[in-house]
């Protein structure tokens, strides 16, 4: 009802990919891949590397889903369908600890970014299986809630959108420190309705102190079951950046070449100018929202990995046999890791008070 009574929304919906099915149109009609067959001028080795990482991320995520489905994990949430954006982002991030490197404030679809940064897939499996060995949370939090301080990957938080506010703080620190480090934020489209998204735009663009933030939105057209169309009066989410004088753009995040080129350009600008960029990227959501909605493959959505693969095969940049081999070996690797992680220890019940305070200072009132 809401939807049909709003004609303005109808017209704006046309202009965005919105639901994933329309995303396909956006891919083919609106946002032609940069450079088309020329692959944006990217080298073959880079393209192969990008494909390789996308496969690794996908296979890992599909293993996570299977781990959930066999009852070896309580919950799955992750990123199949976001590889064409996440992988280039991870490749381009300045990896390391401290303000000279990039801070990553990710949401719960960060696997492709981290695979591209070199995360050991075992650590992702440990996380979903809540092992004591899980380096991100020690068995305390959900899948894809990564945390790697050695790479400035700050803890993923379940409450939607809060990472947009936290990035203001790391951005402030980086701006003061000098150098080229930037703070990168990822998040979904529905979450932009939260005040924290507006806060981020406002604080990033204060004339008193603009901040080096790469503010990204992965627009998959959905917030769980609520479609984009009924909730967004703005034509594009990236339009909101314009009001604050923030350099803003919308890209086809299902095309890794476009993602790579635009991310590289934007990051260079932020590193140099120490000012923010808002980037909205249309992406797919290939297995639904999470295990709560079944985690089944949605074949109606464009698959950025398969589409990229076809292009690379057609241009003879990769060989079918090699691709098949890659999937096989990655699947075997993830399966082997899963078996290993199964044998790892869970966290002990007695550890619940650990890390409430730094250095395990007592926080249990019974012992005050």
């Amino acid at each position, binding site marked *: 009802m809401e939807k049909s009574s709003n004609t303005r929304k109808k017209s704006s919906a046309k202009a965005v990919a919105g639901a994933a099915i329309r995303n396909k149109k956006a891919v083919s009609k609106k946002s032609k891949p940069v450079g088309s067959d020329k692959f944006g001028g990217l080298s073959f080795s880079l393209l192969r590397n990008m494909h390789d990482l996308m496969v690794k991320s996908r296979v890992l995520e599909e293993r996570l889903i299977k781990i959930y489905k066999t009852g070896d994990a309580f919950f799955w949430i992750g990123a199949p369908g976001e590889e064409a954006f996440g992988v280039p982002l991870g490749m381009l991030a300045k990896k390391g600890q401290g*303000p000279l490197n990039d801070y990553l404030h990710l949401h719960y679809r960060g696997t492709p970014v981290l695979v591209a940064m070199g995360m050991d897939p075992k650590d992702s499996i440990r996380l979903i299986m809540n092992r004591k060995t899980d380096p991100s949370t020690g068995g305390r939090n959900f899948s894809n809630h990564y945390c790697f301080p050695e790479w400035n990957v700050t803890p993923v938080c379940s409450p939607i959108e809060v990472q947009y*506010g936290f990035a203001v*703080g*790391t951005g402030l*620190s980086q701006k003061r420190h000098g150098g080229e480090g930037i703070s990168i934020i990822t998040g979904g489209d529905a979450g932009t309705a939260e005040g924290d998204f507006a806060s981020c735009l406002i*604080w990033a663009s204060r004339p008193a102190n603009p901040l080096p933030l790469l503010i990204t939105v992965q627009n998959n057209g959905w917030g769980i079951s609520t479609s984009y169309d009924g909730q967004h009066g703005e034509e594009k989410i990236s339009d909101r950046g314009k009001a604050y004088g923030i350099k803003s753009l919308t890209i086809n995040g299902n095309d890794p070449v476009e993602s790579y080129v635009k991310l590289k350009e934007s990051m260079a600008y932020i590193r140099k100018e120490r000012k923010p960029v808002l980037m909205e990227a249309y992406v797919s959501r290939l297995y639904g929202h999470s295990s709560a909605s079944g985690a089944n493959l949605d074949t109606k959505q464009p698959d950025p990995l398969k589409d990229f693969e076809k292009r690379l095969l057609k241009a003879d940049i990769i060989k079918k046999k090699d691709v098949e081999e890659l999937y096989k070996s990655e699947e075997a690797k993830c399966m082997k890791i899963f078996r290993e992680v199964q044998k790892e220890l869970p966290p002990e019940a007695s550890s619940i008070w650990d890390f409430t305070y*730094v250095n395990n*200072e007592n926080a249990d009132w019974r012992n*005050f």
Partner: protein
Amino acid sequence: MANMAQAIRMALHFAEENYNVTDIFGQDVGAPLGGVFTATQGLKTTWNTPLDERGIVSAAIGLGLAGDRCVAEIQFCDYIFNTIDLLKMAGNTHWKTSGKYNLPITLMTPVGAGIRGSVYHSHSFDGWATRIPGWKVVMPSNPIDAYGLLLSAIDDPNPVMFLKPKALLRVKGEELIPGEPGDEKSLKAAIDAPLGDRSKWKPKWPKIKEHKITIGKAKVVNEGSDLTIVSYGRTLPICHKIAKNSEHSIEVIDLRSLYPYDWETIYNSVLKTKRVMFVNEETEVTNFAEHLSYRVTNSDLFYHIHAAPKVVAGKNVPGIGLHPNLEEATVPYEGEIKNEIERILEIIP
């Protein structure tokens, strides 16, 4: 003697110079105003933020993630409520990452009634604050404790909430802060911003010294043997005054640190006096004092006490009305506390 606002200012200055504080920020915290209660005048690292409490707490968390030590302010705790989930996140960051990140941040906010602040400048936050695990929570009742607790808060590797009893911010202390000039007028001339144009004004900081109060340590401010009163913040001086002038022998404990709290001091005192009353101005239902009271009755003190522990707190009404009749009927004032003292002492075991 310095008042509490001046003591806070001096602590912040000391922390800028000695604890690598990078940012002191919040609404109207920077020049020219230096805070609505003047507690941040003349400092090096202050700046004004947008009018956005969630943004302020988020920025503090982000600075903490970057390892920076900051002090953020929410102008009145009445406006902190839309940040509660962020406060929870600050509290669980170290825990949920199994120790990978810690947030060395301090959040300060004025709390409580006593300035005729009506519905939205009189809230308390101590009850809420103690329900956010991972934080430490402190609340001074006098300038030197404000100085010492704030230094400890800033130097702590955990998030610490520093609750400022707003009615006491202008109250002068009875003890000099180490290095504070003995002459009040010269202190004022040195560190209070002048009225009018302040653009060229710079404070002349006295050579103040480090003075920390361990978080988790209470202070017995009045010794006694008939009754223990445990209080903190605005109600503490009221209880102290009553005790000093009472015909009864009343022990008064300034809790100072709400979490972690000093059970040993409470325990020893109640073991001696056999009666205990907790006084604060937060609303009474699920009040922090109820936890302390529960602990008294669930420890072996139960077998020693001569009366049930008493909680004297704010009435469980939605707000504090502006008219003095309303305010004084809502939060504990001298008369009510005195009555409750008589009642608890009348009880024959």
